[in-house]
């Protein structure tokens, strides 16, 4: 069975911690560690680090969190409703028809003003 080099062993720390080393590789990994003080110390430090991270408790959201979310949802819904076109859902007049009406109204006003 081939011996693993130091760098190969160090590259397997994560897989070992996650229990993802297949049996043959695990055997060579263990064999190396039994004879190598440096890699054994490295593994201990690596494992302690992962354990420390895993031991951190979750940061909990404040109690008012859900209420604040619902408030923001309502605010967004109101804003979206307000930004909808004025005639949305009511009478739909094509833009092409509005322009001649505006022009005609302007001409009528001008004529009225000149009289």
């Amino acid at each position, binding site marked *: 069975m081939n011996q693993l080099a130091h760098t190969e062993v160090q590259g397997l720390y*994560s897989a070992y911690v996650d229990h993802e080393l297949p049996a043959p590789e695990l055997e060579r990994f263990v064999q190396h560690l039994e004879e190598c003080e440096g890699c054994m110390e490295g593994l201990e430090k690596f494992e302690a680090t992962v354990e*420390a*991270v895993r031991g951190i408790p*979750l940061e909990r959201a404040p109690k008012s*969190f859900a209420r604040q979310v619902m408030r923001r*949802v309502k605010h967004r819904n109101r804003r979206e409703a307000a930004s909808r076109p004025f005639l949305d859902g009511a009478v739909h007049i094509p833009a092409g028809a509005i322009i001649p009406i505006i022009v005609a109204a302007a001409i009528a006003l001008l004529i009225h003003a000149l009289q």
Partner: protein
Amino acid sequence: MAVDVATADEHPVPVTGSEPTEAEKASALRERLLLARLKRRDARAFAELVRLHQDRVFDLCARMLNDREEALDVAQEVFVALHGSLSQFRGESRLSTWIFKVAKNHCLNRLKYLGRRQRGKTDELGDVPEGELAAHQSLPSPQEALLGKEQQARVQAAIAQLPEEQRLLVILRDIEGLTYDEIVQITDQPEGTVKSRLHRARTALAEILGGKEPEDGS
């Protein structure tokens, strides 16, 4: 700052060899029902969704941004975005995976924005009041001796020093306890890349916590 929730598209849940347990089946059915209610715009169902996922989303945001105030804002933004995009969820992945993906996108966007603004960190998670530290030093319970507040603050400060991609992987795997399949779906990275980057992140953390400078790279 808008984040396109549609970019948090889903990937099918990978087929695993083992049969789901009774608890997993029940959980999947509850999630299906919740989703059906959400699609009917049921306000109580949405409140339930927030209640179920708020702590994990807030934790991810808090650790990614290392700033409670920003994290609170982003976490709320995540749920508001989810509310507006529930119709886009096709149910092909777990709801929690989709939520994490939306949260990840929001965090990375905010980090980019904050990077541009060079905002000073005023309320970092790693900050522990001196009095509190002293109290923990003088009265350590067995659990606190193992991983006291000071140690937690040191670990969080070390996580905050990692590049964003590595930080995300450490949070998802070692704090949130997600599987590699879930992380692959959230990050859109191949499993091999996830594993090698996580290994680099853990090595860097061990070096930071051991007093050495981390190696550069993501």
